[in-house]
């Protein structure tokens, strides 16, 4: 695709701008900022990826992945501001998921240890893990707040913090995993996944594109489970003190 052809796609930005103006939605400024940011960020990433792929240095791959984790942590941590040390907990969850998934992929020889595979797959894993973290933290903080009487009840009857927080914790873990599982049930029927569509448009064999998409889908199941559970079990102890009392905010 030439840059001229690409510039024609801005028509798809003009349409929402006109609609926003016509109906007084007030979204023109945000739409323009989003457009400019996406152009700058994606072009920058494109050039950086080209440099990293050409250099064939694992150090640059490591730095790219580290940058992704830092950005994702920064984005997700705000949702759990009430949880002590949330930055490191989110970062640890993301690192664990990344190491686990890449370890299995490279260790079993499913994908080669090259920048071309590690970076895009890491992007999907870390991005998905970040969204999962946000979903989990949103749900967990509201569950903890709304279920205080139940938590106090279990503590007052001689339960441990783990027993007291069990229901809010499990319900938040489930709630954050459900979108990933549900979206996989309809994949291929309702929508073609973005990565697979991209490969097919770029001229790849559709069957091979499906194979890679399946790999990603399975990977995201692990990502969802590990992120939610790890973050949940790292987070709940900070809600209680050593006398097994709920810390009041």
């Amino acid at each position, binding site marked *: 695709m030439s840059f001229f052809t690409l510039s024609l796609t801005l028509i798809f930005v003009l349409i929402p701008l006109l609609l926003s103006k016509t109906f007084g939605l007030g979204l023109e400024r945000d739409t323009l900022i989003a457009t400019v940011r996406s152009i700058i960020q994606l072009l920058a990433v494109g050039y950086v990826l080209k440099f990293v792929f050409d250099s064939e240095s694992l150090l640059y791959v490591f730095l790219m992945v580290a940058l992704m984790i830092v950005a994702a942590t920064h984005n997700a941590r705000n949702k759990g501001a009430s949880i002590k040390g949330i930055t490191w907990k989110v970062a640890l969850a993301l690192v664990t998921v990344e190491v686990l998934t890449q370890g299995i992929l490279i260790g079993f020889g499913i994908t080669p240890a090259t920048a071309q595979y590690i970076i895009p797959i890491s992007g999907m894993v870390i991005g998905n893990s970040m969204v999962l973290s946000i979903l989990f933290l949103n749900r967990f903080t509201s569950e903890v707040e709304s279920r205080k009487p139940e938590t*106090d*009840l*279990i503590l*007052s*009857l001689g339960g*441990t913090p783990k027993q007291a927080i069990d229901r809010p914790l499990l319900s938040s873990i489930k709630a954050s995993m459900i979108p990933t599982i549900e979206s996989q049930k309809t994949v291929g029927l309702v929508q073609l996944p973005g990565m697979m569509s991209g490969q097919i448009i770029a001229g790849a064999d559709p069957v091979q594109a499906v194979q890679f998409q399946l790999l990603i889908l399975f990977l995201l199941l692990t990502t969802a489970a590990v992120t939610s559970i790890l973050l949940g079990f790292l987070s709940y102890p900070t809600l209680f003190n050593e006398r*097994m*009392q709920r810390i009041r905010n």
Partner: protein
Amino acid sequence: MLFLFWGKELNGVSAIQLEDILYKVDETPILTGITGSFAEGAITTLVGPSGAGKTTLLKLCNGLLSPDEGRMTVLGKAIGDYEPTDLRRTVGMALQQAPMIPGTVYDNLNLPAVLKGETLREEEAGRLLQDVGLGPEYLKREADELSGGQQQKVSVARTLVNRPRILLLDEITSSLDRTSVKEVEELIQSINKKYKVTIIWITHNLEQAIGIGDSIWVMMDGELVDAGDRTILQSPRTERVRQFVEGERV
């Protein structure tokens, strides 16, 4: 010192002793200088206006909160020397809202046992229900379908599963109709006799405070302003208590 020895005068043993207790939230004192004792085996009623710190005091006794200053002993042992779970089983507390977990009445009664990795036998659960004025036929009923009064009774029965030595009841009659209030009053007295358990309970109702129990604590603005038998409400000894009693009667 009058308060400190009040509880002991009844039968010579203190279930809970408090010495100069201070509890604050964000530097705001909620309880200040609380000194006194609750006699073992007796029923003590806590009265006072909203915000007096009565619920906070019960939570300190159950270990849901810890004092910032002062010394507390439960059955002669410093509160800090108890494992938190042991303390809460020894000093059981029925919470004001009587929260029910999703499920049947049996599921709720079984909860304290489950928390210990055990199971409550159905016959035992049925007996506990009878003790609080409900029949075993309630075991299979969904807990959230019960009336407020019935939930309060289940809440008390659930606390008794742990066989506490001291039972704390936080305003369990506050949202009930008159008939239910009467039933719960009788329940408090019968539990005290049958289980030989020390009961400390909160009420807003001065008639109840005068009618039930062996001793009364009057709390205001986080302080214990008077303690004694029912005469401290019938013939107040201080101006603050007199004003409170007159205010409640209006």
